[in-house]
């Protein structure tokens, strides 16, 4: 499929060029070219199995950890090839953070959850301040400041997910990848996460995969619709939802399949 590469205004933070991901013989992502602007929220939408999570995981090379996964084409971060020979995925993952679908705090104290990333990455500032700053940034500080030494598993699901966001922020990434971050949460916790995403885009580029189209419409400035591994349509969120150019996009957002 020949797709015109839409270039949103502003600096390009992440980019893929003719990117494919193969699991063995199966091509999960097919020749995707997309440009993601700096300090904006971009949503990936599409039915289950459309490759949106796989595409997301290319940006911090988490697909490296899947046995048998292979990447073709190029993925660039600030113009640098993420799959170049001189790129260390460990370095990339500090600069491009990730939040997962199910909250996955370490079974340790709240403090140690946040402090782990800075510690292993040789953080040279005051660790206590970094923990506080990260928790404040994730709008969790007031709820946990008196029990930082308690287990993170004692928190509610929504709090755990904000802890995971705070944990990702503690290593001061430039990009935050979020893989359906609210799909395991109740509506109130979901609302808090969405408000948080709205705050975060002032400092971070956020790429969010979501099943929830209202969520994509609420939080994102740009939306990409993927179907069967292909990027079908990409553009300003408002256009995608009010005036899609592709019939398949329209069918999906109006709920006729997916």
């Amino acid at each position: 499929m020949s797709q015109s590469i839409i270039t949103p205004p502003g600096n390009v933070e992440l980019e893929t060029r003719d990117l494919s991901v193969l699991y063995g013989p199966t091509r999960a992502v097919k020749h995707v070219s997309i440009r993601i602007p700096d300090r904006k929220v971009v949503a990936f939408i599409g039915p289950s199995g459309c490759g949106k999570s796989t595409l997301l995981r290319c940006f911090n090379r988490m697909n490296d950890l899947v046995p048998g996964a292979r990447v073709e084409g190029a993925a660039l971060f600030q113009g640098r090839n993420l799959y170049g020979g001189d790129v260390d995925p460990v370095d990339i993952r500090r600069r491009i953070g990730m939040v997962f679908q199910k909250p996955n705090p370490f079974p340790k104290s709240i403090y140690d959850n946040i402090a782990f990333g800075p510690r292993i990455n040789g953080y040279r500032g005051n660790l206590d301040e970094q923990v506080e700053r990260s928790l404040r940034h994730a709008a969790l500080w007031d709820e946990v400041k008196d029990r930082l030494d308690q287990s993170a598993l004692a928190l509610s699901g929504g709090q755990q997910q904000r802890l995971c966001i705070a944990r990702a922020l503690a290593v001061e990434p430039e990009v935050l990848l979020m893989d359906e971050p609210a799909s395991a949460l109740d509506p109130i916790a979901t609302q808090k996460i969405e408000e948080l995403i709205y705050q975060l885009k002032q400092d971070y580029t956020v790429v969010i995969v979501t099943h929830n189209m209202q969520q994509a419409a609420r939080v994102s400035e740009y939306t990409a619709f993927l179907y069967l591994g292909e990027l079908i349509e990409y553009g300003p969120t408002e256009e995608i939802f009010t005036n899609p150019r592709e019939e398949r996009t329209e069918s999906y957002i109006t709920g006729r399949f997916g």
Partner: protein
Amino acid sequence: MSGGDARQRCSGCAVAGGAHPAAQRDERRFRPRLRARARFGVVFQAVTLVATLIGVVVLAVLLADIIADGSGRLSSDFLRHNPSYLASRAGLRPALFGTIWLMLITAVVAFPLGVGTAIWLEEYAGDTRFKRLIQMNIANLAGVPSIVYGILGLAVFVRAFALGRSVLAGALTLTLLILPVIIIAAQEAIKAVPGSIRLAAYALGATRWEAVRHHVFPLALPGILTGTILALSRAIGEAAPLLLIGALAFIDFVPGSLTDQFTAIPIQIYNWVSRPQQPFQELAAAAGIVLLILLLGMNAIAIVLRNRYSRKH
């Protein structure tokens, strides 16, 4: 809405038989047999309880028997004396210390080797043919009779490495015996650590070593310790491989170094049981009690260690 309408609407649905008209509920189409099913549940529960009790009762009888036979011989003298041809003066000292030496050396050698192997297999090896080959061999080695390990120990440690009939040769033989058990237990404990924890660590820029060191290993440790203690509990009761490497000799001293000769409690029991006189039978029972107490002590240590590591989070 009439029943006919409902049938029409459902005619395309995937459920076999199409419509199930709730409006025309007919109890005769079910035969729940609730009493019979409930009775079966009760019977099954009773069967499992009986199975449990048989094991517990046999163990209790065994314990009562050994305590009845041996408790009269248990005294501090029994632990302090050397074996003797006079039952009244015979003691367990060399065997007791020999067993303690064996367990300490075996634990110190087998734990790092076994856990290291398990971590490599689970975290580093991937799914290669080489890994599957090793895995298959470990599973098979866990089932090899202990006397075969004795033959190996005799050939390799006693003769080829020229360690002689030393406590070190004995401990290394026992290490080989329990290594597969420790490896498999440690692998299971490592596998039980959720993948999401590893992903969380990697996503923060952790290396594989850091993910293992800070998250996988601490979470797996309680299970690893349990497996190690179970393996050592097997080793502490082994006589056959030690007999083969020559620990049967009459020993009236406590090993002072790794290269000293030794004997162990199971061998002393074997020695005493094989004598016809009744007092020696009682001594054997008393030695059995000491062995059981050592076992309980080891299990207690495992529980304490496990709780300490579990409480951290």
